[in-house]
């Protein structure tokens, strides 16, 4: 029996693609290698009794129109948006908190720099305008550049209008800012180190660059897409954890008739005469299909799953050259009590607790990583999901999910052995304790996931959660590789729908939705 369409990988993008396709009447079979759906968003009791998630609480921002299209609310999706976006403790016992409410944030900033507080509304307004432009660009497959096809012209015109609506000066400003470094950009705006550090952290998320790297201003804007104006570096949580989102999507997809199989790892995408004809599972089972859609990362898809003899070596070279240098380790800490940061309320801890006191701090953290070492003084992003959902941990206990950057995949010397792993968790405890001294004594369990683990357990090449860094040369029409940015591949009948494609990671399901739409367009044509 030849199936209509197989999707490889049951992460959020794979599930979203499956749901959109099934909803349009396509007979979909989704294959997930692991026993749980959700990919990185899948939860696991990595510390017994604590429901952890490797992706780090936040499966990325779920765009409201995806939730609406797929009627996820009706299926039980509940999003919680904490009032606090970022709380950034400083040395000497102060802390800067950025709230979803810009006025409240400005008050807060005023304690650090009245000038900066004064400029805050202007800054947030500009960021919101730029993010809106990106959101429009992200909603469609990237037009073919520099020689657009006829069908791109409408898209380009719409995007052009959107850009023009910014006004003359803002439009040039957008073109100027996007390729800048987040450090230079923030230097143009602000004086306070604390503020610049807390914001710049958003520009280096999962990228092997420091805040002085060109293009980090773009990364910052990328992570503002979909956020309400003023909610700088805001996040929302799915009630029940990101695993719940996967479960809801799976239910909706099944409701539309999609077939989902877990524990079904794909060994090979079978290609004959340049055309994908199905997949072979690790078990040896062959599943024939007219179309195959891979949500695994492009490097893995092409260098591990497709016979290289079926590919142009130059294409394969381009795929191998995709930069996805994993830089983040996730450390789960089980705590017997909440961390106590001086001057920080429980409400302020509802969002991300960021250890990023200055631009130089972040840049120094990157310096170590350049030479293959874990940052001696790392940038940390801690979230306490138990503040919102106490069911994730035993009564009275707390779970803290900490993302540590930089923990380079290519660790020198020796690589990721047990010693290196335990050093990472010690480093997290020590670093947090420098700001919240009670952490050291309250750790009752810990679990470390290194980039190496992400590769080994989740199949992510070099442990990069976004399937490829969001650098200027790897976005838009360059993602995943030049000439193949529209979810198609050189193999007929084989498509990509993961975070390795436009618009990339950090936006839950956006790539999966775009890919599904392109596939459906192609079917209609």
């Amino acid at each position, binding site marked *: 029996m030849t199936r209509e369409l197989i999707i490889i990988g049951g992460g959020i993008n794979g599930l979203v693609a499956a749901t959109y396709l099934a909803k349009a009447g396509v007979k979909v079979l989704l294959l997930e290698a692991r026993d749980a759906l959700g990919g990185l968003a899948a939860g696991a009791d990595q510390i017994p009794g604590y429901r952890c998630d490797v992706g780090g609480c936040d499966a990325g921002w779920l765009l409201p129109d995806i939730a609406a299209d797929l009627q996820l609310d009706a299926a039980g999706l509940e999003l919680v948006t904490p009032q606090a976006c970022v709380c950034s403790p400083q040395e000497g016992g102060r802390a800067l908190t950025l709230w979803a409410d810009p006025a409240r944030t400005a008050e807060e900033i005023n304690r650090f720099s009245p000038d900066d507080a004064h400029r805050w509304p202007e800054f947030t307004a500009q960021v919101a305008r730029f993010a809106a432009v990106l959101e429009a660009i992200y909603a469609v497959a990237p037009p073919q550049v*520099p*020689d657009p096809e006829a069908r791109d012209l409408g898209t380009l015109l719409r995007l052009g209008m959107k850009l023009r609506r910014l006004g003359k*000066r803002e439009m040039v400003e957008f073109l100027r800012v996007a*390729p800048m470094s987040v450090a230079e950009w923030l230097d143009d705006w602000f004086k306070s180190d604390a503020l610049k550090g807390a914001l710049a952290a958003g520009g280096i998320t999962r990228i092997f660059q420091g805040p002085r790297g060109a293009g980090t201003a773009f990364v910052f804007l990328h992570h503002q897409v979909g956020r309400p104006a003023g909610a700088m570096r805001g996040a929302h949580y799915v009630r029940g954890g990101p695993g719940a989102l996967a479960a809801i999507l799976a239910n909706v997809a099944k409701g539309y008739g999609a077939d989902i199989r877990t524990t079904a790892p794909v060994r090979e995408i079978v290609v004959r005469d340049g055309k994908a004809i199905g997949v072979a599972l690790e078990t040896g089972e062959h599943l024939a299909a007219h179309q195959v859609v891979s949500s695994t990362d492009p490097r893995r898809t092409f260098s591990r799953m497709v016979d290289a003899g079926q590919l142009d070596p130059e294409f394969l070279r381009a795929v191998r050259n995709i930069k996805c240098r994993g830089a983040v380790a996730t450390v789960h800490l089980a705590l017997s009590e909440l961390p106590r940061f001086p001057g920080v309320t429980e409400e302020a801890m509802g969002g991300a607790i960021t250890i990023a006191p200055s631009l130089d701090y972040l840049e120094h953290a990157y310096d170590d990583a350049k030479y293959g070492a874990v940052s001696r003084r790392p940038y940390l992003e801690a979230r306490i999901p138990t503040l919102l959902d106490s069911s994730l941990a035993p009564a009275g206990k707390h779970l803290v999910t900490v993302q540590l950057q930089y923990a380079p995949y290519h660790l020198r010397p020796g690589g990721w052995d047990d010693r290196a792993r335990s050093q990472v968790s010690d480093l997290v405890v020590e670093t947090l304790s420098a700001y919240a001294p009670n952490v050291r004594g309250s750790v009752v369990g810990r679990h470390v996931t290194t980039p190496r683990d992400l590769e080994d357990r989740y199949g992510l090449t070099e442990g990069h959660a976004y399937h490829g860094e969001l*650098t*200027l040369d790897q976005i838009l029409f*360059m993602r995943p590789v*030049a000439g193949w940015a529209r979810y198609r591949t050189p193999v007929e009948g084989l498509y990509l729908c993961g975070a390795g494609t436009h618009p990339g990671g950090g936006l839950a399901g956006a790539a999966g939705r775009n890919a599904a739409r392109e596939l459906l367009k192609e079917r209609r044509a």
Partner: protein
Amino acid sequence: MSTTWDAIIIGGGHNGLVTAAYLARAGKKVLVLERRHLVGGAAVTEEIFPGFKYSVFSYVVSLLRPEIIRDLDLPRHGLEILPLESTVTPLDNGDYLAAWGDPDKTRREIARHSLRDAEAMTEFGRLMHHMAQAVKPILAMMPPDPTSLSPRDLAGLLRFGRHFRDLGQERFHALYKLMTMSSADYLDEWFETDALKATKSASGIIGTFLGPRSPGTAYVLLHHYMGEIDGSFRAWGFAKGGTGAISESIAGAARRFGAEIRTEAGVSKILVRRGGTSGVVLENGEEVRARVVVSSLDPHRTFLQLVGDEHLPDEFVSDIRRYKFRGSSGKVNLALGELPNFTCLPGMGPHLRGAMSISPSIDYLERAYDDAKYGEFSRAPYMDIIIPSMIDPGMAPPGKHVMSIFVQYAPYNVTGGWTDAKRDAFGDAVVETLSHYAPNIKQAILHRQVVTPADIERTTGLTEGNIFQGELSLHQLFFLRPAPSWAQYRSPIRRLYQCGAGTHPGGGIMGASGRLAALRILSDGR
């Protein structure tokens, strides 16, 4: 009664002189005002110690536009560019990596380090050739203003767009990568030999406050290949008589066309009345009137010092204020009693006629950058060394030599400022690093001149000692150089033009800014 000039050019650097020569050639009455006793700006040759001539600041030439050489007939005024044949990178293990004038020899040399790299060179060279071809018309293009709806700008944008479309997808994408990537990442896609990547990267970081792993450094790799498509045999050259000879030859051409050049005539103020300029005031108080004033100084100096905020729109002032200079390089010029003896290639050899590049690995360059990021000069800096007297014997007394060492990084904003002690320490670090590769260097030194970014600023007036009049980073290029809407050599002050490297395309002894500015002035005058 003083005369009224058609045009006054402020600053006798190479771009100012090029503008002057083109305007004079078109029959305009032109006056060049230079603050120092000699023309050239950062392209000067000075006999700092008797018998030893230094190209004090800039030192090599690669991009001087051939059309300028032809239009102004510069060889008639003494210009002769001698080839720099080779680049040799000494390695820490006592070996070296070389690129020679002959492709076979280079191939064999690289194959000694990596067979694959030797092959990749050919294809990489072809790609760079294509990229240089794609970029060349942009360098010669008046940047269109993307926000303007004027027919001229729309036509320019259309031409710009068509240019990219004609490149085809493959080359456009390659160019896009080149513009956005770090030189280290870009070269990683092609090569495996660290020293090869480092030495190629080094050309990508010259004059910037960026490391080889910083995005935006890849496109400068092109410069090595630009010469090739201009019909010249080799990209890098050394001007006979030092870089000052280039300036002198352009000045000679300008004078032949009737321009007047006054030295020791610093400008203190650009006269502005009702939004237009009518001339300048000299440091000695003299007023000189002109229909058009052209500044070859950097945007800071021109607008914030000579014009003054009060005459300019707020937005423009804030754009100029945030325009970044961040001088990052210094120069050490040595008078030598004997030739350096490099451990990797002992004794006399062809390598001494080329460049010696101290860039043994990407990490080496990156660490040099790390020092600078936090306000220190590099303890072990990147150095580009040439021995001009090996190419042009007239640069030093017979049997003796001059050595020009371009050094990076030496940040303008060094912690504690550039004191005399700091300057000496910087010079010592350079000599120390060099002696690691050429142990006899210390005993060979007769005289030493150390030039820091602060010295460059003080002597030439270049803000923060940036030799390119502003960093060549993506957000300061093309229609953003120096400020949006003012990238076409004009300024918010009527009849005040800009012609320095702070305008498109900027950087290096290229002269393109000066030429494009002259063309703009002439077409506006029509």
